[in-house]
Structure formats: C-alpha cells, structure tokens
C-alpha cells in the first residue's frame, strides 16, 4: 500500500500541477494584449477587457457596438445577458464583493437606488454635455452628479390604426368619439392588468396636474409627493368614471391589448416603441401621435433614458472612461446604437438625421414628457399606485378615499 499511496500522491500532484499550469496559461491568455492599435496610435497594445451587463433585448445590440469599440481601441469587451427585471438587484449585491461588471446598461429610473447603495461610479462628460438633449442628460444626473452616458430616450405615445380613424385628437374625449365612429370593439385600448399600470396611465394623470413628485427649479425631483390633493382626486374620479364606462379594465393585460390592436379591434392605443415594431412587422398602417389630454393640462408621459452606467468598483477605470467618454459620447457611436436599437437618440444631432416617422412620432410625443423620477423613493410608489388605480377602476374603493389613503401609505413607506 505504501507504494500505492506514493503513486497516487504523485499522480495527484502531477494532475494538480497540470491543472494549475493550464489555469495560469488561461489567465495569461486573457491578459495578453489585443493585437489592435491603441487610440493614441503609439503602437503599444492595450491589456485588459471590459465586461458589460445588458438585458435580453439590448445585449445583442451592445455586443455589436462593442465590436466597433474593440476595432477602434483594441479593448476586448464581454457582454453578459441578464434578466431585465432584476439585473439592478444583482448589480447591487455583486458590486460590493468586487464581482460585478464594469458597466451596466439600464433605464435611468433605477439610478437612484444604485446611487444610494453606492454601487455606481461617476463620469465626467462636461465637455460633451452640450451634445446631448436636456432630458437625456437629466436622466443620468442624480443630485447634481453625473453617473453615466445616455444613448436613447423612450416614452409611450398614442398609436392610431389609420384604417379605422384619421383623427388627430387633442383631448381624450375627442379620441374616444373618433374611436367610436370606427365602430370597433375598442374605441381605445390600453394595458392595465390586475396590478394596474401607472406608467401607461401617467400621461392622463399629469393632464390633471398631478405629477408623482414635485420637481425643484432645476428639474430634479424632490421627495415631496404631488400626486394627491384635489388634482389627484380629480384624476381618481375620472378613472372611476372611465372604469364604469369600461374604457379601462384590469382584465386587459399587455398581451391582450397588443393582440386586440394587431387584430384591428381597437382604433387607438397607448404603447411604446417595443410594440410598434411588432405592428410594423404585421404590416399595419399606423401613425404615432402625442398622448391626448384627459384633464385641463397637457399630457406628460414618463420619459425613460437608456444609458451605460459604470460600476463603482471597476478595476478598469480608464478603459471605462475611454468607452463612455471617448467612444459612446460620440455621434458615430450614438448613430450606431440607433441603427441597432431604433430608439429616439439621446443626441439631437443624431435624432435630426432620422427619417423614420415612428421614431419622429415618439420623439414628438416625448417632447412634453417628464423624466421618470430616479429617486429611490419612487420604488415605494409603484405598488400602491397601481393597486389603487385597479381598485378605483373596478369600483372596489371610492375614488377620493382610495386616492388619499394611497398617498398616506406612500408617505409612510417613504419615511421608513
């Protein structure tokens, strides 16, 4: 047996060495500089690579963009696909352990929670700030500090089935009337679901003058709630009325609304570019219009800003800055991102070159829009807000009382 042990030990050792050896080699491989030339043109190649997290719809676009970046700067990029709904939570839990990516692609409304968790790094784009639209910039700015580089703006708009109506309604009632003339099952359809959908309903709510949080004179959101009060209750009353008339219905989920519009059962719908591309693919004749006001003021849909945000603990600070400032903040890269993703570009100069009527329609509808609040307090709002909308629409609760209870609940949740 003694010899048995030594043989085994030796072979084990040999195998271990082999394993270590190969893993070391692998490491060296990855650290080996990419053959391309660096931007400085000094001929020295750059070691290191970047890791970017993006969701399922954007990861292929980001991968395409990264190829271009690699060609230009010689820095390799790994794009990791993550689930849209919880990539921010994963980011928050991984960055402190030093395991997260170098960059993450997100809508800006999650920024506040990233900042208060200390996981997102700062970026200086002062020199390029003038190239971006104000809305896009405000999306990546939080408490006066810039945390990322935007590339696209996203908002919902009114979409009209041109075969059923030619109206360009300015008010909700005009739209309903025009829709009724078309004599279809739904003059107007919008997704709601049994948890409510404050995002799609926000344009109507703001037309009553009840935005969710107060904005200070610089346009940053404060934590002061403004969705209640008389104006908010007027909106709740209107919701109850329209719920009673079966204009809104929690049974209508996103899928049902999309299908009904595709089937030509609805004259108008409120939706975003993600569904419009599907309508186009089905060869529908549609027009994208601004959201009609339901109350006395203008309808302001939420505007979301898509951007690249750096990790606070990236070990590749310089490469990250190269990517964000020297590459992504150029017209060329922004144009490429538009070609890949077909969203309203964050740079007006790029947006001006676009002839796609849908994109122009969304851009027009978003001009009056309000940026989605990025403050962490926003997370306390969604659930109560949606459920209350459902309860009001179904008549489960009296609109005024429901709305004021909701405001109290949100206030309590924010205080915690």
């Amino acid at each position, binding site marked *: *047996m003694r*010899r*048995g042990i030594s043989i*085994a*030990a030796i*072979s*084990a050792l*040999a*195998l*271990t060495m082999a*394993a*270590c050896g190969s*893993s070391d080699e692998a490491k060296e491989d990855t650290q080996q500089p990419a053959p391309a030339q660096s*931007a400085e043109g*000094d001929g*020295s190649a*750059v*070691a*290191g690579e970047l890791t970017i997290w993006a969701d399922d719809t954007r990861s292929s676009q980001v991968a395409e963009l990264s190829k271009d970046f690699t060609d230009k700067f010689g820095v390799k990029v790994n794009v990791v696909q993550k689930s849209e709904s919880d990539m921010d939570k994963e980011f928050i*839990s991984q960055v*402190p352990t030093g395991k997260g990516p170098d960059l993450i692609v997100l809508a800006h409304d*999650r920024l506040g*929670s990233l*900042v*208060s*968790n*200390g996981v997102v790094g*700062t*970026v*200086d784009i*002062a020199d390029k700030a003038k190239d971006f639209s104000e809305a896009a910039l405000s999306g990546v700015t939080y408490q006066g500090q810039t945390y990322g580089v935007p590339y696209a703006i996203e908002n919902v708009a009114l979409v009209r089935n041109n075969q059923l109506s030619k109206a360009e309604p300015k008010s909700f009632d005009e739209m309903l009337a025009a829709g009724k003339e078309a004599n279809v099952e739904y003059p107007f359809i919008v997704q709601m679901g*049994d948890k409510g959908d404050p995002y799609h309903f926000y344009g109507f709510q703001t037309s009553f003058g009840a935005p969710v949080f107060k904005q200070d004179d610089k346009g940053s959101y404060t934590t002061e709630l403004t969705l209640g009060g008389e104006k908010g209750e007027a909106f709740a009353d209107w919701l109850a009325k329209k719920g009673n008339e079966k204009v809104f*219905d*929690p*049974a*209508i*989920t996103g899928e*049902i609304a999309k299908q009904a519009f595709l089937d030509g059962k609805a004259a108008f719908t409120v939706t975003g570019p993600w569904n419009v591309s599907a309508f186009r693919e089905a060869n529908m004749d549609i027009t994208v219009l601004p959201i009609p006001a339901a109350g006395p003021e203008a309808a302001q849909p939420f505007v979301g800003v898509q951007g690249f945000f750096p990790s*606070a603990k990236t*070990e*590749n*600070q*310089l490469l990250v*800055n*190269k990517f964000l400032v*020297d590459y992504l903040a150029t017209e060329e890269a922004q144009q490429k991102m538009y070609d890949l993703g077909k969203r309203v570009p964050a740079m007006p100069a790029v947006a001006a070159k676009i002839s796609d009527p849908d994109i122009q329609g969304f851009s027009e509808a978003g001009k009056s829009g309000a940026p989605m609040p990025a403050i*962490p307090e*926003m997370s*306390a709002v969604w*659930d109560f807000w949606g*459920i209350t909308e*459902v*309860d009001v629409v*179904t008549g489960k*609760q009296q609109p005024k009382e*429901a709305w004021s209870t*909701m405001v109290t*609940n949100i206030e*309590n*949740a924010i205080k915690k």
Partner: protein
Amino acid sequence: MDQSTVKTKRFDRFDLSWGFWVKVALMALINALGVYGLLAAWAAESYLTLAVVLVTLIIADVIYFSRRFIPAKYLFPGLAFLLVYQVFVMGYTGFVSFTNYGTGHNSTKADAITQILAQHQKRVPGSPTINTTVVEKNDKLSLAIWDAEKKAVLVGNMQHPLTLVEGAKANDKAITEVPGYQVLKFADLVKRQQEVAGLKAPLTDDPNDGFYVTTDGTKGFLAKSDFRYDEEKDELLDTTNNVVYQPNGEGAFADPEGNTIMPGWRVPVGFANYTNMAHGSDLAWPFFNALVWSFIFAIFSVVSTFAFGLLLALVFHDKRIRGRKIYQSLFILPYAFPAFLSTLVWKGMLNTKFGFINEVLLGGAEIPWLTNGTLAKVSILGVNLWLGFPYMFLICLGALQALPEDIMEAAKIDGAGPIRTLFSVKLPLILVSTMPLLIASFAFNFNNFSLIYMLTGGGPNYPGASLPVGETDILISMVYKIAFEGGSQNYGLASALSILIFLVVGVISYFGLKRSNAMGED
C-alpha cells in the same frame, strides 16, 4: 520460494486493479480542484474559505488513501455537500437575519466612505478640460498638468501639491517630457488603472482649493469634493455648510438632526428583524395573515389532493373498470406538465373577461376569479388540486396494489362490508405507507412559491393596506416581496422570516414523522 510467486504476492498486496486507478484518477481530480480552489481563495484574500477548503481537502485525502475509516468513505461526500449546501446556507441566512443588510446597507463602512466621497466630488463649474499626463518617479505616480496661463507644466500628487517643473516639453496635444520623471504611455496606465483613477493633484495644501484629477490619463480637470472624512474623529464634514455627520449606530452617517447620507453599511441589529414581525405595527398583521393563510393553503392542499387522489385510486384500482390503463395515463397528464407552465395557462384561463372559464364555460360571466380575495384563494386551492392530485393518485394506487390480498379476505370472512373494510383496514394501511409523503407534500406546499407567484402574484392587495402584501401571499412569497420586489430590499428581514418558516416546517415535519413512525411500529 521462487521469483514469480513473490511477484504475484506483491501484485496482490498493492492491488493495482482498474478500480484502484479509477480511484487515483478521481482523487487527482478532487485534489486538482481543491488546489485550484485554494489558489482562487488566496487570490481573493478570502482566508476563511481557504481554511475550509484546505481542511476538507486534507480530510478527503486522509480518508480515501487510508485503509481504515471505511464508514467515513461512504459518509464523507454526503457530509461535505450537507455542510456546503445546507449548514453553511442556513448559518449565513441566520447571520444575515441579525443585520440590516438591504438597500443602502449592502457593503462595508470603508466602501461607503469611499463612495460618499466619490459621489460628492464634482468638476469645479466652468473649469476647462486640460491636457494631463501621468508621470512616474521611484514607482510613485504623479499627475502632470499643462497650465495654459503660465504656459508651464505642474506636477503633483496627494503628498505634494502641484509645483512647477522647469524644462518640460509639451505640445497642444499632450505633455511629452517632464525632467526627473518618466512619462507613462496608455498601455502602462491601463495596468495601474486603480492608482491612476485615484490620482489627485491638489492646488495647494488646503484640499478645499480643489485638485486636478484625470479620467483617462491624458485629460483632466479641476475638481472639488463637498465632503471630507476625518479618520481620527470618524466623521464626515460637509464643506459647503460645515455640517458634521457622525455614524449613527445604525450603519449610516447622520447629522445632529438625524438626516443620513446614503450609502450606509452593514451593521448587526440584534433581534430587531424578529421583533419587527411581532409588533412592527405595519408588518405584524400582514405577517399574521400570511402565516394563517400559509397553513390553510398547505393543509387544505394536502388533504384535498390526497382525498381526490385516493378516491380515484380506489375507483381505478378496481379490476372491473374497463380501459383503466387509459384513464390512469390520462390522470397523470397534469403531473407530466411543468407546473410552472400550467399555472400560467390557468392564470390566462381565469382572466375575468377573456379567460376560457368565464368566456366559454360560464357564457361570458365576468367572475373576478383572481382579483377578488376569497375567489382568488378558492382559485389557488382549485388549481393546486388540479396540479397535485395525480401525484397522490400515483402513490395511493401504488399503496393499494401493495396491500396483501389475504387481509382483505380475512376482513370479508369477519363480515366487514366494503365501507368498513375501506375505513378500518385499507385506509390505516395506506396511511402508514403514505404519511411521510404527505408530510413532505405539506412542507412543499407551505413553500409553494411558484404557484402563488405565477397565479395571483399574492394579489389582490388589501385595499388601503400600508404594505403591498396581498391576500393570497403565503409566507415565502411575502419574503420574496420584502427581499427582492419594489426598489427597496431588506435582506435582513427576509432572512429572519425565512428562519421562522424553516422552524415551522421543521417542527411540523419532526412531529409528523415521529408520529408516522409510531404508527408503523404498531
């Protein structure tokens, strides 16, 4: 004794059969993995992991290369996995439940301070972007900047404020030469990215005058930080209004009025997460409701699926039924479908307006199956019955087939009718063999997260409730909402709830199994 016999004997003793080589190969693999783990833990400076891996590896080698420890050879893999996947996870969950881990408190104090300082470091308004370069002297980095007014190059770092260097060469693109220093190229900078990113060149000795920083090594700007950290006093100073922030004992810096700056860090909070559940006013009653509903849901699910499964098994066990094989296979269908998917299908079928049940079966009756609290509970129980009965059907059928025929004969001879035979003979015998499975089924349903989450999402929420917890939320889905949903996470509280759920399921399983053992021994 001649040579050959010695040889065979030796050969026997060393047992170089193929089994031995398989063992060597396996152990080599395990050792290779172990050593890799050691190196990885070393590189990550995770010394506890390193110690655990080292000890496990040594024990494994001792056990398998020795001729003794025969039982340990069988037990060791199971024990190792038990330690890693059960004991460690439970221990860690327990540890988290005593902290404030969650939104705003997810890292260490040092991280929080670094991050607060970084978040409040901003470009001085109107400060232009200038050419900079990173220079090195005795392996220490400094930042060289091009001062356009003085038309000169200044060099500085945290220890030495910016000072003029004579004889430096620069063009409008970059600083190319600084006497006494080595100018670094981009590729060299990339290797020391962290150092370069943290490089600051203060204007003067007073940090409030601002400092130059660089974002990519070649360009830089004048920046200022609104916050300063005093290491000795352990306090943060807001230089814009001279407010002092001190640690508030709850893992955050707070000013005298109690306003905190985020991010904070993780601190132990004792039993606060547990006591919150009992008398944190807004958590107590949703917790209580969810607890009661979890029990009702789990008990009713087990009883209903078992009763229905047993009934079907009794019927289709009877040999007089024609084509029972076909029926039996049909009944197993719901079991063969992934429950996840069929729950989603059920959700669609129960839609108030467009669902199959309302639209087709009930002729357009708009019954709010999933949006009315009571109906939602009924729907959940119904769907779970549909999902769960095939399993009970299968095990009851098996148990029935295993019943010895002679006992039935004896019952018949004793004059028992079919009903009496069922309740006094068959049922007790079936229960003995199925009781452990029923307990397992209870534990499973008590934590049947996917059904609740996919079917109702816990909804409908209590109208006007102060927590977005719904009427059909069981404990585990409530834990999920607290830990992951919305934007604010509270892992500490969620862990405390998980520990409680574990205790409930553990205690019930323990007594249940004990009882079923007792029944078996009778």
